[in-house]
């Protein structure tokens, strides 16, 4: 078969991070090409470059034998590439017809819309997809999740695309809807379309793909026919083993339980989660995107509504609010540090002093500058935060140093329980390892840590135990000394079940 899309030495750098590093592979015309990798492996970045939503830093692409460098989604669409993104991309208050025809509205003369033609084309495409039951006149918000997904595929078909990119297309679908989507994918393939299929559900890859490419840490690890690999091999390729020995020694003797969670539930996000945490212990929470682990972390901090369950700290029930959590020595390091973790337009020192500002102030709320400076200096030194001065605005710091500032804030307030949500995401390797040292050191000092992460190596290297979440359930609690990364991933993917969690 001829090559549809050739990717050659593609690189993408973000400030402080290399998202794609010299990636090359080929997609043949008419095949379903699976693309797999852990979170942060570079899948999303790659498809954004192919679909014109991002520009690559270097490298090239060749589409149908011709150099291809889309500068906007429009150019990519014109070249016959349509992408179905993970993000919600329907128009909630517009009818199915307008959703499907978005960007391809048909006109008669003088911009007059050809409603009849559009309706017919929309119906035709829905029929091809076997989705005649979707009412063309209804607004998108009234549809079921599976039907909304169909809208996006229909939009791609209207464009007469020859290459379709599907990014986690089944994430929001129930099993029946998934089956329907699979048959759609097969029929599209039968019609000669090339499909780049991204999914973290490996069984889908094995059912649909002809070939599969594995990405890890922004690099292409392997491209091979699906028949030449199996699930275990694929998981091993995704996980890798490069960082195994780089972790500091764990705190050998965690203390007494201080933090207990019983039957914590949040409607449709996570359900009946229980665990306890000792001082000086590091608990990892693993799970795929959509497993509910991030929301659980927020909920522990009182920042995500709960339906049921109790959280006790030193035997006392913790009221459900961030303010009360902070008052009880709980700190939360959010996943999106720029949005939630730090104040970009405040200086480093104020970012650090903010939670304890009251304690640093004198009469009439006057901030005692000397004490604030001392505090900020102490923590910038201890965490080796690289900043030209304490007055530097956080927006001018690198990602890793921003993350350190976000953490310093809580350390300065002497938090006893730290909830870290993806603390090493999008920071470079060197700072990553500084973070690992820091986590180990804090735990030796008796700080209890909950580490939410998608990086199995770091969970295994740092945690005393790992709770695995899958679709809102805590499916297993594993001992990292006895369970390798593949076992963890198996639980996360649902390939293995644990009878009773210890």
């Amino acid at each position, binding site marked *: 078969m001829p090559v549809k899309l050739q990717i050659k030495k593609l690189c993408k750098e973000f400030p402080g991070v290399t998202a794609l590093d010299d990636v090359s592979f080929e997609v043949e015309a008419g095949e379903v090409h699976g693309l797999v990798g852990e979170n942060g492996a570079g899948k999303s970045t790659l498809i954004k470059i192919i*679909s014109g939503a991002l520009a690559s830093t270097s490298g090239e692409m060749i589409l149908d034998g011709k150099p291809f460098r889309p500068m906007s989604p429009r150019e990519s669409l014109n070249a016959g590439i349509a992408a179905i993104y993970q993000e919600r991309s329907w128009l909630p208050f*517009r009818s199915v017809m307008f959703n499907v025809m978005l960007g391809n509205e048909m006109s008669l003369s003088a911009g007059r819309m050809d409603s009849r033609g559009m309706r017919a084309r929309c119906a035709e495409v829905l029929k091809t997809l076997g989705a005649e039951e979707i009412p063309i006149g209804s607004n998108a918000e009234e549809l079921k999740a599976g039907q909304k997904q169909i809208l996006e595929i229909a939009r791609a078909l209207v464009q007469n695309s020859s290459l379709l990119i599907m990014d986690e297309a089944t994430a929001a679908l129930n099993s029946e809807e998934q089956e329907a989507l699979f048959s759609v994918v097969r029929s599209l393939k039968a019609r000669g379309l090339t499909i780049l299929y991204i999914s973290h559900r490996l069984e889908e890859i094995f059912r649909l793909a002809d070939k599969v490419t594995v990405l890890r840490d922004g690099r292409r690890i392997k491209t091979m026919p699906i028949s030449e690999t199996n699930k275990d091999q694929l998981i091993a390729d995704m996980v890798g083993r490069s960082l195994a020995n780089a972790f500091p020694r764990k705190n050998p003797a965690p203390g007494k339980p201080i933090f207990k969670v019983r039957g914590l539930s949040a409607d449709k996000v996570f359900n009946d989660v229980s665990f306890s945490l000792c001082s000086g212990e590091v608990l990892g929470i693993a799970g795929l995107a959509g497993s509910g682990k991030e929301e659980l972390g927020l909920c522990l901090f009182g920042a995500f509504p709960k339906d049921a369950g109790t959280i006790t700290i030193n035997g006392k029930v913790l009221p459900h609010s961030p303010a009360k959590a902070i008052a009880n020595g709980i700190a939360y390091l959010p996943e999106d540090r720029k949005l939630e973790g730090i104040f970009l337009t405040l200086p480093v020192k104020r970012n650090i002093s903010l939670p304890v500002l009251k304690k640093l102030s004198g009469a009439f709320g006057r901030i005692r500058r000397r004490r604030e400076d001392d505090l900020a200096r102490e923590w910038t030194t201890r965490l080796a935060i690289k900043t030209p001065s304490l007055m530097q605005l956080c927006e001018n710091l690198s990602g890793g140093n921003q993350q350190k500032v976000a953490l310093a804030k809580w350390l300065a307030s002497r938090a006893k329980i730290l909830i870290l949500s993806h603390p090493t995401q999008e920071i470079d390797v060197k700072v990553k390892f500084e973070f690992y040292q820091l986590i180990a050191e804090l735990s030796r000092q008796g700080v209890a840590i909950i580490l939410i992460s998608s990086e199995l190596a770091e969970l295994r290297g740092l945690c005393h135990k790992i709770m695995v979440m899958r679709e809102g359930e805590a499916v297993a609690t594993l001992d990292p000394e006895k369970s390798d990364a593949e076992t963890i991933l198996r639980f996360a993917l649902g390939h293995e079940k644990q009878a009773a969690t210890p």
Partner: protein
Amino acid sequence: MKVSKPKLYEFLAENGFIIIFILWCIFLALFTDSFLHVSNIMVILRQASIIGIVAIGETMIVLMAAGMDISLAAILGVSGVMVASSIAGGFAVLPAALAGIVLGGMIGFLNGALVTRVRINGIVVTLGMMYALEGVAFVATKGQTISSPAMQALAPLSRGYLGPIPVPVLLLFAAYTIAYYVLNYTVFGARVYAIGNNERASWLSGININRHKMLGYLVAGLLAGFGGVMQTARMGSATGGMGSEFLFPILTAAILGGISLNGGKGKIQNVLIAAVFLTTINNGLILLNVPIYAQKIISGVILILALSLDRLRSVRK
């Protein structure tokens, strides 16, 4: 999506202001003598015409979630001054009126360029523009009223009749017919709604977001310029502050008419009804002999009520 709301609640959230409007009309019909007179109704429609026409541009901008144009009333003011001083300076009426409209369009274009190219928040851009234009209008008029006998030639635009219908009322309905058509039956209109619904998805579908927003601001500027011509015709003169009384009703008409401030939702015909409602409030309060400052209080309360309805609309789940 989970909880199905009662139909009545939904109806009120969508059309609440229309019910308030009807109740207000019944109240006025009962407690004043002249409200239902044809002549009074024509007065209301005539007054609603300028607000209504300019509110179309506001509606387009809000529909695209491109901000909110606060400068339209000020554009109306400088355009009016432009028209009046051109005529006073010896120009014929038609080129003078065109100059006013073109000036409005140019300012709208500049607003659009600042929003889409320089990427300044739309509210901030137009707030600054409003302030600057008010200054320009006063400088240009030196604080005086600009008037000349030649301006009588503009009068038909305000006092003229076509059959039994006043010209401004005719213009109002013509403008809304066109706007209704454009928003509902053209590709451009479909994309205006699409952008307001989901800008990123629209961009990823190859729609040129900036071009549409530019056009929105441009059309809003042109219509505000036209509003300036109409207001000059109505007063037979122009002053530096002639735009300021329109600031409030233009914004309120769009919001009260149910154009969601989050974009993508709302019907242009309801903006027309809202514009008429707003003038009816003033008209009624005058008929009831309510002092001018109390009128302001009531108008302000109505805007907040309208925003509460917008909130009801956008609270889903």
